[in-house]
């Protein structure tokens, strides 16, 4: 099959030029929808990074009464150590609690002076369960233990954040899918217009015996290029907006872990380029088979 590169290139670009407005619409839609897909992918990666960090650190603290007896403390200590669900336990005794207290409030002397001796501070157990989901059940066991003053969980905030990000990603996915469909339809429509604009040429080509692929390839290239340009714009948008978004997130204490690496961005960019060319090729393939009766 003798399809010449310069012929295909010439035909493809003259088509793109002729259909400039429709091409622009298709390219923009591809860009917007792929940018959404990219954001969804990146948010997901950031969430999974942040949650492993959070989950690894999900813990509960069992605070004893400051005047808990040694007996009460060792009972709790034994109970915690015996639980298979528990991964790690650290006992923070009076002295350690006091040291931490001094460290945290070293810049506020008046606060520091309110506590005179280590005995006034409650000792505590910092418990890390095997799985983040077990925090509740572990904590429940000790709420009413002898000498226990309070069980504090560090996970309600995290739960909320996870819920919000899950909602955001789902939303992004839905919008992205709808936009992707719109993009493929627009490409289909541009190619259909291109075929219609060139129906005379196509007729002559069939008449003199051009092969079907010879007729199809320039149109398919046109769709492919629209998809690729759109994807490239989406990748550019993503790379351009990343420092800004990350700069904003840095100011939020809880979202410090919420970031993506450069290699993740590049990987996502690659996915977008592949997606863009698939959309372009698929849209034009449908147009070519449906409207180019060869």
């Amino acid at each position, binding site marked *: 099959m003798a399809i010449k590169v310069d012929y295909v290139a010439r035909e493809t670009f003259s088509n793109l030029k002729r259909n400039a407005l429709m091409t622009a619409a298709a390219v923009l839609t591809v860009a917007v929808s792929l940018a959404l897909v990219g954001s969804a992918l990146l948010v997901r990666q950031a969430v999974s990074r942040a949650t492993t960090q959070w989950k690894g650190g999900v813990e509960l603290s069992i605070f004893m009464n400051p005047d808990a007896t040694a007996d009460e403390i060792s009972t709790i200590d034994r109970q915690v150590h015996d639980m298979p669900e528990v991964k790690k336990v650290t006992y923070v005794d009076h002295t350690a609690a006091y040291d931490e207290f001094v460290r945290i409030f070293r810049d506020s002397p008046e606060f520091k002076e309110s506590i005179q001796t280590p005995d006034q501070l409650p000792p505590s157990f910092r418990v890390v369960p095997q799985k983040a989901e077990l925090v509740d059940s572990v904590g429940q066991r000790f709420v009413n233990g002898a000498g226990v003053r309070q069980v504090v969980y560090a996970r309600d905030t995290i739960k909320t954040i996870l819920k919000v990000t899950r909602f955001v990603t789902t939303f992004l996915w839905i919008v992205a899918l709808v936009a992707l469909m719109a993009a493929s339809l627009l490409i289909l429509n541009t190619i259909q217009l291109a075929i219609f604009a060139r129906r005379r040429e196509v007729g002559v080509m069939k008449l003199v015996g*051009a092969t079907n692929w010879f007729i199809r390839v320039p149109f398919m290239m046109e769709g492919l290029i629209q998809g690729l340009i759109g994807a490239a714009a989406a990748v550019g948008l993503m790379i351009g907006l990343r420092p800004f978004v990350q700069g904003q997130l840095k100011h939020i204490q809880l979202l410090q872990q919420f970031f993506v690496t450069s290699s993740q961005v590049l990987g996502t960019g690659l996915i977008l380029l592949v997606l863009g060319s698939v959309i372009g090729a698929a849209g034009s393939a449908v147009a070519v088979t449906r409207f180019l009766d060869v």
Partner: protein
Amino acid sequence: MIRLEHVSKTYKGTTAALRDLSVDIAKGEFVFLVGPSGSGKSTFLRLLTKEERPDDGRIWVAGKDIAHLSSWKVPFLRRNIGCVFQDFKLLPNKNVFENVAFALEVIGRPKHVIVSQVPQILDLVGLAKKRDNLPTELSGGEQQRVSIARAFVNRPLILLADEPTGNLDPSTSEGIMRLLDRINRTGTTVLMATHDRSIVDRMRRRVIELDHGQLVRDQARGVYGVATN
């Protein structure tokens, strides 16, 4: 070169376009296909290029049974057949040279073949001086010559002409017929559907007459109408 055996074709919801037609055309013949509108002339021609499929019967073109030709081979069948139409079917945004070159370009002929073949064929049809003109700048007869040049530039075995003089005045038509005659003398089989009585009567070539899709006359040195019309 062209052989039809018991060919029938019916379009949906109409009467038969062709009924049990058997025709044999040898290599190098010049054949007129005559008959009133709707007698099946165009269907005959479209069957040969496989734009239509017969409901029944068998067709051979250039030694090949085209009923059993797989669809990807159809383009290669068409490279053996040049087609000329009443409405020329030229590309308005291409000049004379480009219109003819297009036919070679889209079947993948290399550039050096194009630059040597196209001027040669334009010379043959007498349009060497108008190679840079657009179709709109040409007369009807000149446009038809471009269309013949395009059909013949690939040196096909068969030339099909569907009312090539239908839009032209008698003296221009005569020039076109001389050109087709010259092409026929190079050994190309020419099959021409026409309504033009004076041309058929003057040329005295084989005449095949169709009426309501049936062969009513096949005469070696015929005229337009003897029995009917």
